[in-house]
Each structure stands twice: as structure tokens, then as C-alpha cells.
């Protein structure tokens, strides 16, 4: 009897020891294959999901999109707004054991600013120089005050890379990134998997509980969901909005959502080439009529089971910068018809409507088509492969274009490049001196209330008076489905999967 007890105790002890040593692996299903994993050269949204486990940034965002320190400890902007001093977190090391200090921070920022093909250069365009003040302090001198700077540093522009590894690898750094995040890169096989493992010298290692993360790109959303159901994955990003009901009915699976910081809208070509010679482009009253013929709620109900958030501005209605004084207009076909009459439009107005070829957008386009037809618009939907649609838009070969924007945490990132004169995303060629002045002014002012006031004038002009070129429709929801045994997951509005604090039961 005693012997049995001893054996049982020993077995139990071994079992506990075994359990303590068992490796925990989190398997994440990605909707696309990430591009190069170099923070300076990367561009894809899905790449940012992987970066959030391997590369820490100077700042991160909180649930309200406010910058909070990550590798930085604090920051201070000078009274004239032209210098930003950043104190850095001590005792931080990169995955290769190199120390993270002011020299390393300067190196990373300089690399973003000067490397050939750097996509961070425009984001940090306001930075004139980076200076080392002391081993744990850097000073950024700006060409002009630029209030969205901190928001830029919460994304890839704020990611710090090991100078030693980056110098050695050059533009091949992305094949084996070495940063200072909670996980270190192990291997990446294109279109197959990316494996990262817990970094035991991470500055916040006590809050990292999972040993290994495997990212698996599975582009077909049905298959991604099937993998979650079969237990082959623990978390999937971006399931289809039409699958929400199904996901909620799966036992032991949780769905978390957050309204995205991006939007979907219709860009109307105002002055880019001969295609812009329509009454829709020339007369704000016609654009107003078009908008009045739309029922944003109905689009949301029919296409997305009412899960998304209808909107009419470049930020979503929950955002601090949303202007309550410019509300979503109710559908009013009679008024729309009257406006068209007033503008001298008779008979159906034919509009070339370019729509990227995907099932979701196609459905939205068809809904718009049938809604505005009642007011007298004849939308000719032209389904176009995505890469082609970008080029056509740039060349001005469209009258209306259904296109989304993934969104940036600072409102500037959702409007400046689209609405300031001659900006790269301004394919509609909207150009207004007052709007330009306002948008530039909003970049200089740091007080949020004051900035909101400036943006209000822009919203009144562009949206309230329909002088602008974008008719915003809705804000999608970031959808993440995960197994119940994954604990500690909170959904941030940027949709990224933050891995610190996650536990697998």
C-alpha cells in the first residue's frame, strides 16, 4: 500500500514537472502572406501583426488610440513644437544581445530616414535630424512642428532594430529581423509559416507566457475558419463579416471585435483628366443628391448583418475627432431628385463606377447602384482587379471609385494625403486653398481640442457642403476569433494581435 502511494506521488510529481516544462505554442492564422519583415521596407498590414511580436516600438497605442510609452519612457515637445526629446527605457537588449540605447535608437531612426526604398521616410518626413543627448535620451529636431509625429512612432517608424544585425544584413535584414520585442524570429518560409520564440531577456518578460508563436498564412477565409474549428489554429484574424453568426455558435470559440480606424468610401473624380467632366464632378449639389440617395444603414444591414459602423467622415463616430456637427444625412430621394433638377440634370446620369473585384465590395457596389438609381444615377459598375484599379485611379480613368483605407491612429493619416493638393493619394485631384491651409495648420497644433476645431471646418466644407470628393460609407470591424483557452486577449482598434499578456490554458 505504502509502495503504491510512493509510486503514485512520484508519478504525480513527474507529471507536474512534465507539465511545467511542456512548451506552449500559439498558432495564428493570417489572412495574407506578410511581405518583407524589415520595419523600414515593410508595407503590408498583415506584416504589422507579425511585427507586434518581434519588434517593439518607441510608443504603442492604448484603447483610445493615445500614444503610450513602450521602448520610450517619456517624451517632451518644446514650446515651439520643433524639438521632441525622448527618454528611453533602460536595460533593454536586442535579440542578438546588443544593448538598446540612444545610439541604437538614432541608428534605427536614421535607417528609416535614409535607406533606399524606405517606406518610413515619408512618415518621418518632418524629422530634420536625430541627436544623442545622453546614453538614454534622444532629441528629434523637426523641420516644422508636426503633431502626428508621436502617432507615427507607434507604428513601424518607431520600431527599433539591432544596429549590428542591420549593418551586417543590409537590405536582407528582413530575412532574419533582429529587434527588441517579446519574441525572437526563428524562421520564415514564404507562404507557409513564420515561427518566433520567447525572448528570455525581454524587458517585460514576466508578462510573456507563451513559448512559441507560429504564424500561418491561410488566404481562404473558409479554410482559416475550418482550421480554427478543427483545433489546428488558436486564433484567426479577419474572418468574413458574413461568418460572424457561425463563429458565435461554435463552442469554445470567442469572437472579439473593435471598430477599425479605417473607412470605406466612394472617391469621385473631380479634376483628374477628361473622365472628370461630369456634373457629379462639377457641381456639389449633384454630389449632395448622390449622398442623399444612399442609405448607409441599409448597406450595413444587408452586406454586413449590421455589424459594421455606418460613417460619413474620415474617422469613425467613436473617435475623438469625429465632428458631431456634421451628422450622417438621412436618405431622402425626393430631395435628391429636387437637387438634381436644380442643378439642371435631366434624365439618368451615367457614371463609370470602378470597383475592385472582390465579393464584399461587389455587393456593396450593387447596393449603391440600386439605391442611387432611384434618384436618377445610372452607375455602370466596372469590376477591376485590385492592382489595375490603383493604376487606373492614379491615371484618372474613373468617375467614381469604391475604395477603402486601412486607417492611421492620428486623423492626419486619414485625410492629409487624400485631400491636400497634389498629394499622392489624392487621385480625385481635389484642391482647395482653405482646406490646404487648415490641414497644414492641424499638423502644427498640438492641443487636441484646437485640432478638432480646425478639422471641423474641413469637415463642414468637404462633407457638410459636399465640396469634397469622398463620400464615406462605413467603418469595418476588426474581427478576431480565438479559442476560449487563449486568455488575456484584448482587441485594439488597429486590429493587431498584441502577444504580451496572452496565456494558453
Amino acid at each position, binding site marked *: 500500500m505504502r509502495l503504491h502511494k510512493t509510486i503514485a506521488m512520484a508519478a504525480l510529481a513527474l507529471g507536474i514537472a512534465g507539465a511545467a516544462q511542456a512548451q506552449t505554442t500559439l498558432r495564428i492564422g493570417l489572412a495574407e502572406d506578410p511581405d518583407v519583415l524589415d520595419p523600414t521596407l515593410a508595407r503590408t498590414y498583415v506584416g504589422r501583426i507579425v511585427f507586434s511580436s518581434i519588434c517593439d516600438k518607441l510608443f504603442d497605442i492604448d484603447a483610445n488610440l493615445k500614444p503610450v510609452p513602450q521602448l520610450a519612457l517619456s517624451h517632451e515637445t518644446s514650446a515651439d513644437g520643433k524639438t521632441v526629446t525622448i527618454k528611453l527605457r533602460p536595460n533593454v537588449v536586442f535579440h542578438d544581445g546588443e544593448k538598446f540605447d540612444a545610439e541604437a535608437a538614432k541608428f534605427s531612426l536614421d535607417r528609416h530616414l535614409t535607406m533606399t526604398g524606405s517606406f518610413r521616410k515619408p512618415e518621418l518626413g518632418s524629422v530634420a535630424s536625430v541627436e544623442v543627448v545622453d546614453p538614454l535620451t534622444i532629441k528629434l529636431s523637426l523641420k516644422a512642428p508636426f503633431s502626428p509625429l508621436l502617432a507615427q512612432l507607434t507604428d513601424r517608424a518607431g520600431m527599433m532594430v539591432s544596429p549590428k544585425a542591420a549593418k551586417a544584413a543590409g537590405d536582407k535584414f528582413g530575412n532574419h529581423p533582429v529587434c527588441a520585442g517579446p519574441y525572437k524570429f526563428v524562421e520564415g518560409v514564404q507562404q*507557409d509559416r513564420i515561427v518566433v520564440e520567447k525572448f528570455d531577456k525581454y524587458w517585460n518578460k514576466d508578462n510573456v507566457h507563451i513559448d512559441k508563436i507560429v504564424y500561418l498564412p491561410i488566404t481562404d477565409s473558409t479554410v482559416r475558419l475550418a482550421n480554427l474549428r478543427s*483545433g489546428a489554429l488558436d486564433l484567426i484574424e479577419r474572418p468574413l463579416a458574413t461568418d460572424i453568426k457561425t463563429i458565435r455558435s461554435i463552442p469554445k470559440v470567442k469572437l472579439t471585435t473593435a471598430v477599425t480606424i479605417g473607412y470605406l468610401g466612394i472617391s469621385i473624380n473631380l479634376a483628374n483628366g477628361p473622365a472628370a467632366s461630369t456634373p457629379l464632378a462639377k457641381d456639389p449639389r449633384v454630389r449632395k443628391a448622390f449622398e442623399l440617395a444612399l442609405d448607409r444603414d441599409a448597406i450595413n444591414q444587408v452586406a454586413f448583418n449590421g455589424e459594421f459602423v455606418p460613417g460619413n467622415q474620415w474617422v469613425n463616430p467613436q473617435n475623438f475627432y469625429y465632428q458631431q456637427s456634421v451628422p450622417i444625412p438621412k436618405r431622402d430621394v425626393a430631395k435628391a431628385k429636387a437637387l438634381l433638377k436644380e442643378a439642371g440634370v435631366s434624365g439618368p446620369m451615367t457614371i463609370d463606377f470602378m470597383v475592385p473585384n472582390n465579393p464584399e465590395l461587389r455587393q456593396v457596389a450593387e447596393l449603391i447602384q440600386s439605391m442611387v438609381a432611384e434618384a436618377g444615377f445610372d452607375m455602370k459598375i466596372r469590376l477591376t482587379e*485590385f492592382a489595375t484599379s490603383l493604376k487606373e485611379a492614379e491615371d484618372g480613368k474613373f468617375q467614381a471609385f469604391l475604395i477603402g483605407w486601412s486607417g492611421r491612429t492620428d486623423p492626419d493619416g486619414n485625410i492629409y494625403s487624400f485631400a491636400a493638393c497634389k498629394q499622392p493619394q489624392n487621385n480625385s485631384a481635389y484642391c482647395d486653398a482653405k482646406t490646404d491651409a487648415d490641414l497644414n495648420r492641424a499638423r502644427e497644433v498640438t492641443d487636441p481640442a484646437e485640432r478638432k476645431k480646425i478639422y471641423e471646418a474641413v469637415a463642414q466644407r468637404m462633407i457638410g457642403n459636399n465640396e469634397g470628393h469622398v463620400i464615406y460609407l462605413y467603418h469595418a470591424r476588426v474581427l478576431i476569433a480565438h479559442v476560449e483557452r487563449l486568455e488575456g486577449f484584448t482587441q485594439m482598434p488597429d486590429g493587431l494581435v498584441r502577444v504580451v499578456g496572452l496565456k494558453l490554458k
Partner: protein
Amino acid sequence: MLSFLGHRLLQLIPTLFFVSVIIFGLQQLLPGDPALIMAGEERDPEVLAQIRKQYRLDQPIPIQYFYWIKGVMAGDLGESMRIKKPVSELVLEKLPVTLQLASMAIIIALTIGVGAGVISAVKKDTWLDYAANIFALWGISTPNFWLGILLIFLFSVQLGWLPASGYVSLGEDWRQSLATTIMPAFVLGNAIAAVLMRHTRGAMLQVLTSDYVRTARAKGLVERVVVIKHAMRNALTPIITLGALELGTLLSGAVLTEQIFTIPGFGKLIVDAVFNRDYAVVQGVVLVTATTYITLNLLADIAYVLANPRLRG
């Protein structure tokens, strides 16, 4: 024989040159700007100009072709714009995957297709024949993506026997490797099996009524020996040709099937590259596939000559 071989090898040079021009030319016809799609949402004109310069997209097409073909001749297929990896590395990474999937699919196709074809010919107009024909009709008319999703729901979601997607290499864990590839291989093999079954049945029916088979039967040979040793051998020649052609197609990647089962083979690589306008990858993969095709063709010609000395000329 040597002069035949030399002649055929010489013919390869203009063929490959022609193929390279076609690949490069067709690629340029694709609408869209690779720099623009590469930049995605980060569309700064200065950065776009840098990309165009870096990848010589700002040069005239003949010059772009010259630099590409110069690299190819030196064994350099260029670099992926999207992920900054050499194309040759990507090709070598995907080749074993595609080879494994194609071999498994063709084995499944031959086993099922030839087996069912022979049985249905021998048991003509019996229920076995009808069953085999229904199977063939089903195999030909079932879309791969639909069958794939059905299999995933049955074997992964409901029964939990097989992983729904992903790939493990043979070297890493052969059991897992077979588990991850058996469903896609079956999907691919099933469609080919149906075609092979119809051809085998036709060829067998023809051979089974020929004089020499009647003679064999008259000699009192057992039916099994007549079918397997005498009839099947002759009937198989066209089947092998067809099987080789199907194998060639499989080697160029199975786009839809790879997409559904997330198998990182040639098909997925090339589709992603086309959508991202990653020119170097598209050109590299198509060139490698075309060269493989041409080489297989050459090997088949050599095999015919070896088998039939009258062709040596």
C-alpha cells in the same frame, strides 16, 4: 543516336530563347504599375521613383529584358521585389513541395484510374462497369475547390483525422508530411484518375477484342494472365503518354488546390506574384516550369527512340 541527341539539344536554344521573350513580353502586358502595387498604401512619389530605379522599371523594356536574361544566363533569376529574396531560392524552396504533391497525385491517379479502367473494360456492361463510369463522371465534373473544402470539413472539422491545411516536409516528419498532403493529392489525383479511367477503358476494350488476345485465350491461358500480361501491356502505352502530360501540368503548380490547402508550392507562389506584380518571381517560375516541360518532352522523345529504333533516322 548521338547526332539525334545533339540535334535535339541544339533545337532547345532557340526554343528557350523564344520562351524567355514570350514570358517577359506577356508580363509587360499586365495592366497596373508594379511600383504602385508594391508601395501599397505608402504611396510617396519619391519612394516610388526609388523603387522604379532600383528594379529598372524606369528603363525601356528591351533594356529590362537584357538585364534579366543576362542574369538568367549567369544563373541569377533576379530578386523578389515583395520579399527581397532571390527568386532561385524561392524556386528551390517550393520545388520539393510541388514534386511531392505531383508525384503523390499521379500515383493516386494511376492506381485508381488504371485499376477502374481495366475492371470496367473486363466487366463491361456489369454493375462494376457502371459504377466505374459514374465515378469517372463524378471525378471529371467535381470542381477541385469544392471537393477540397468538403474533404476539409469531413476529415478535419468533423472527424479530426487530418490537418485542415499547411505543409510539413518529408524530411521533417514523414508521417505528418503524408497527413498534410494526402487530401490535396487526392483532390488532384481524383480529377486525373477520371480521365485516365476513361482512356484505359477505351484502350482495353479495343485490345481485348484484337486477334492476338483471342489467340491467347484459344491457347487456354487463364483470363487473369490474358488481361494483365497480354492485353494491359499494349493498352498502357497511350495511358503512359497521357499520365506524363498530366504530370507535366501538375509540376507547374496546382493553383486552386494549393490555395485551399495552403500548400506552399509553385501554384501559390505564382498566383501571389501575379497579383503583387512581382515580375521577377513570375518570370523566374514560368521559365523554370517551361524548361522542365521542354526537358520532359526531350526525355520522352529519347525514350521513344530507344523503344523504337525505326525513329532514329
